[in-house]
């Protein structure tokens, strides 16, 4: 009965210059995207520590979206290139230990790509909805809810 009420709650770490601006554009262009996402603005995708992702999941968020500028477009020249390497292994490790890949999504969204932002969020939230609520970090005992 809880399942019908459950709505995914996901967090998005968006870089200030591209993806955050892209999300802004989505709004100002009056495009809709799922309300399930809460956005945290960071200066650059290179600022994102894999710790943020794990911490979000540990605190019960159902998914984490990480988004930055397209390669070559980084406002800080190379932040997203460094981030890309980091994310590549992070994703592999999380998958290896058994975290559903749907829960952690990376994307490149430019400031002009309002529609893409909406699309990415929509697909991501749908993916999270499919894998269900995040119970990964719950203790067995407390699962009896």
């Amino acid at each position: 009965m809880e399942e019908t009420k459950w709505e995914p709650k996901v967090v998005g770490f968006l870089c200030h210059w591209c993806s955050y601006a892209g999300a802004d554009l989505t709004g100002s262009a009056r495009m809709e995207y799922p309300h399930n996402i809460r956005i945290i603005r960071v200066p650059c995708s290179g600022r994102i520590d894999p710790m943020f992702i794990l911490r979000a999941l540990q605190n019960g968020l159902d998914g984490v979206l990480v988004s930055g500028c397209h390669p070559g477009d980084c406002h800080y020249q190379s932040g997203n290139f460094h981030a890309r390497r980091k994310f590549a292994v992070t994703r592999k490790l999380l998958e290896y230990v058994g975290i559903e890949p749907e829960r952690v999504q990376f994307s490149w969204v430019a400031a002009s790509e309002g529609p893409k932002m909406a699309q990415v969020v929509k697909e991501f939230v749908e993916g999270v909805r499919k894998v269900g609520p995040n119970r990964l970090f719950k203790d067995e005992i407390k699962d009896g809810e």
Partner: protein
Amino acid sequence: MENKLKEEARKLLKEGKVDYIVGYGKGTVKFRTSPLITNKEEDIEGLVINPFIANNLSRYPAEIKGKLGIVVKGCDSRSLVSLIQDNKVKRDDIVILGVPCEGVVDIKKLVEQIGADIDQVKEIDKEGDNLIVKMDGSKKTVLFGDVIFDKCFGCEYPTPLEYDILLGSEVSPRVELEKSLKKIKEFEDINAPERWRYWKEQFSKCIRCYACRNVCPACFCERCFVDVNIPQWITTYGSWQDNLVFQLIRTLHVAGRCSDCGECERSCPVGITLRSLQRKMVEEVKGLFNYETGVDKDAPPVFTHYEATDPEEFIK
């Protein structure tokens, strides 16, 4: 090999080329060796090289001031090179005494093979590909290849890649990659919730002694991120959740700098299969960025550099 080591070590100390010799000495626990760090010539006689030299000594150069003559196996030499890349060790400050290594005996495996407690074993000799295990009144022969650490199966660089003095002739690699990756492959075949459950159980055992971190040559931080209290990412005491997150982040921190020496898993007093995480990362870093830890001391460390063509098919 042992005699050559003693001879070279004595020479290095006598000529003042090094302040300390870091090698292996006889341990006080059966068949275990123990790091022997000395600046005295009379201690040199205690140096040993045998199939039980498990420790990765490359952690010491970052810690001990002065010039060191250090004994390394293939995998240890790569840790050392990685430390050179990370600016923690100056190449000129160390004299590397390389040990071509055929593999190191995992005493746990040995105990399983002989079906007896290690305390009952009196003597172990290596004869060719066999180990002759002498116990009270009985003798058992086990295949050397069956009792070495898992990491040794996949070892591509048994002879140190970086050395000043090589203490023996080169050993050809024992690349039994399949055997080495068997556990990882098997693990990947189980479904995600089961995999998660596995780690949950593993990290419920963790007592946060931080041996995994403290024995790891790649973990040289003055202050570990778990010890940061503003913000306190991870509590200093261990719930399995925090233990797991700690280890995952540690794994990411050492990714690309881990030479798969396996010290974390060997040291873990509660037997958490830590190497499985590390080895997985070694594979991924190799697959994604074609980078192997400590193979080239002039190569830029993998996570402070990038290529415009790095894989990104996972990014939408």
